[in-house]
């Protein structure tokens, strides 16, 4: 097993992978761009290295920098998370060429599924049903327009190298074609470096079903049942659940077998998802694509199967054989994931940015919070994805899961900028959602031009606002230094008076890093000598009042270190 791995990502997914690796006794290396210096994943890791410039191409997409840091930090493997370089076959290959292990599908498989046109051809050859379309690779607009006519409208223009709804346009009629084509090409070129697109029949009333797969390097490949991800806006998922209300055991087994066949067709290894569209009027399904990465929504599969996908990703990469077999996979109960985004549902779900001042998450039985920012708040920057957090619940039945999610969302507060939380609360009450009648057009059909329906401000809100004004000085807060005069107002003999400085001390120590450079010329990166979290704590203890009771916690350090050995 690895001693140390680097996580080439940020936010919630980096934190999740860091926790998973640390559980296994593996040390973790975080990387961060300038704007992420105080991000959750940096504090969660054992080591941290700066990437500098926050622009993605200069930070989380910069292969040279990331590989240099992996080598410098003596990491043995790289986990890419999702997004960024996770499905970049060239990066995977370069990681391997640098003598490191890539925690993900083999580069050949990434390449085979990454080129959507090539992937469809491989699937066709393996007799897997694909959506009718044109995948010929022509760049001739006139010709493509002709092909579009043959396929029939509405249709989808999609980036060959696309994902996450980028470089994708729905075309409802012929006269919209040209503009949509140009715009899709441009967006694809900016996001993926390649402007190539293909055409596909667009189904307006279908379900999006994906199967989680896991494959090892011994030829074993299993699926971990489906996730339904039909509820989307801007072609990106916001709500996922498993099991799907549209699948019975027969259909599940059939689709699962096809998913495995699809993965085998490209010699897939490690974790991935085989995506299908399902027409639930006739139970016909078509292969859409394979996502060669851990998915955002992997947690709901973990909830119902009890299988830790990140743990298996790491084990498989380390050369272990899958110990779970297909017949071992049993889903229990029902799991839902709601994604909390910094966005404005009243304005076509446009991303918002700015400072989140406070995050309070619901805590309870079978409720999981994967957070991209600290509970004391943080900045949602325009450089990266505006997802704030994922809220995952698990219960015995779908109705119970909905009830639990309702409670959880009511008790969720992410305050400071517009979010989709109120919108999500409403979706939970929609009769079509409650009855499981969910399709990819759910949001556009039911929530076109949605407005927050609040009419009058309850008097309790005004009361709360006024109480906040008078009580604020007594609330300790670690944002903006608008802190906490509570310490000055309490009993001068209180022992708490002594620890007044600890928040600030620890921060000073954190930023007190030594600078240098790695590499030369263009590839040179600013290096900050990493500070072990242990060092931070010990120096912070050193700097404290010699009479402080905190001095006594030295032994805790010792325990923490020795626990790493297991």
């Amino acid at each position: 097993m690895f001693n140390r791995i680097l996580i080439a990502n940020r936010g919630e997914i980096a934190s999740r992978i860091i926790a998973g690796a640390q559980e296994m006794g593996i040390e973790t290396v975080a990387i961060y761009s300038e704007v992420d210096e105080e991000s959750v994943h940096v504090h969660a890791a054992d080591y941290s290295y700066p990437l500098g410039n926050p622009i993605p191409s200069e930070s989380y997409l910069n292969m040279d920098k990331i590989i240099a840091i992996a080598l410098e930090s003596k990491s043995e493997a790289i986990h890419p998370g999702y997004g960024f370089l996770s499905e970049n076959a060239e990066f995977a290959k370069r990681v391997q060429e640098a003598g490191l292990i890539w925690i993900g599908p083999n580069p050949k498989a990434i390449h085979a599924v990454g080129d959507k046109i090539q992937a469809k051809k491989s699937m066709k050859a393996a007799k897997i049903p694909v959506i009718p379309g044109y995948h010929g690779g022509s760049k001739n607009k006139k010709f493509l327009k002709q092909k579009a006519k043959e396929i029939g409208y509405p249709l989808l223009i999609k980036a060959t190298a696309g994902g996450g709804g980028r470089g994708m346009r729905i075309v409802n009629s012929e006269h919209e074609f040209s503009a949509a084509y140009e715009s899709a090409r441009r967006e694809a070129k900016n996001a993926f470096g390649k402007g190539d697109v293909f055409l596909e029949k667009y189904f307006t009333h279908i379900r999006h079903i994906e199967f989680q797969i896991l494959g090892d390097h011994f030829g074993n490949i299993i699926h971990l049942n489906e996730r339904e991800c039909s509820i989307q806006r801007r072609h990106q998922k916001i709500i996922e659940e498993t099991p799907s209300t549209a699948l019975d055991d027969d259909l599940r087994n059939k689709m699962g077998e096809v998913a495995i066949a699809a993965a085998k067709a490209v010699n897939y290894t490690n974790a991935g998802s085989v995506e299908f569209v399902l027409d639930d009027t006739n139970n016909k399904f078509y292969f859409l694509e394979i996502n060669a990465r851990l998915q955002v929504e992997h947690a709901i599969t973990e909830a119902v199967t009890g299988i830790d996908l990140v743990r298996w990703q790491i084990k498989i990469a380390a050369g272990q054989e899958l110990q779970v077999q297909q017949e071992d996979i049993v889903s229990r109960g029902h799991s839902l994931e709601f994604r909390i985004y910094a966005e404005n549902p009243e304005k076509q779900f446009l991303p918002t940015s700015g400072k989140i001042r406070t995050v309070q998450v619901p805590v309870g039985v079978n409720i999981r919070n994967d957070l991209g920012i600290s509970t004391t708040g943080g900045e949602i920057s325009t450089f990266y994805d505006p997802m704030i957090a994922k809220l995952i619940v698990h219960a015995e039945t779908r109705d119970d899961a909905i009830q639990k999610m309702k409670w959880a969302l009511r008790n969720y507060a992410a305050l400071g900028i517009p979010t989709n939380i109120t919108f999500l609360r409403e979706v939970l009450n929609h009769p079509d959602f409650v009855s499981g009648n969910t399709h990819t057009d759910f949001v556009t059909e039911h929530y076109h031009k949605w407005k927050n329906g609040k009419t009058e401000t309850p008097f309790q809100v005004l009361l709360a606002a006024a109480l906040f004004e008078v009580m604020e000085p007594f609330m300790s807060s670690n944002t903006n230094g608008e802190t906490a005069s509570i310490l000055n107002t309490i009993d001068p003999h209180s022992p708490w008076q002594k620890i007044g400085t600890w928040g600030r001390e620890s921060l000073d120590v954190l930023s007190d890093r030594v600078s240098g450079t790695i590499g030369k010329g263009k590839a040179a990166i600013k290096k900050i000598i990493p500070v072990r979290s242990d060092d931070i704590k010990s120096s912070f203890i050193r700097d404290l009042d010699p009479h402080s009771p905190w001095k006594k916690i030295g032994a805790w350090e010792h325990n923490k270190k020795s626990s790493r050995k297991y």
Partner: protein
Amino acid sequence: MSEIFNFDDGSNRFEVRLRRDEQNGYFVIIKDHEDNEREITVTAKVLGSGQFQFTLDNVIYKCSVAKDGDLRFIHLDGADYEIRRVTELEEEDFEETEDEGSLSSPMPGRIVKILVKEGDEVKKGEDLLVVEAMKMENKIVSPFEGSITEIFYSEGDQIEANVPLMEIQPSEISEES
């Protein structure tokens, strides 16, 4: 001694008078824009940063508040609210000075394409420019019918949220909207 706070919820103004009782109690008078008054006796307790609870007629309300300048984001009883604290100074010169004819960016990002030029006549809903934010292209459309008098940016420019992007002279038909 009582303290007075004024709030605006976007459609109405409210005045809240608050006087501290003994212990953790407060006597509160909330007055709405029609001068309807409500008197409340309440107890309150700090729970943490931005978090507190108050008890009103034996009902416990747990509440979170965050502030950004004069904005107050309030989470109460399973719902979120956004209101603005109004200081008395502002109240005197309350007149809104909104730039009617200018079009502002709804989000920060980069201008990918400008689809109109100065002097163009545009219809309501017509595409004006394409802004890329968070790697997604977003079309910005004309809020009314009019003619473009000035464009403040060019393609490739990085823009902040809520900055004017172009000046549109509304045509007379749409004036009433």
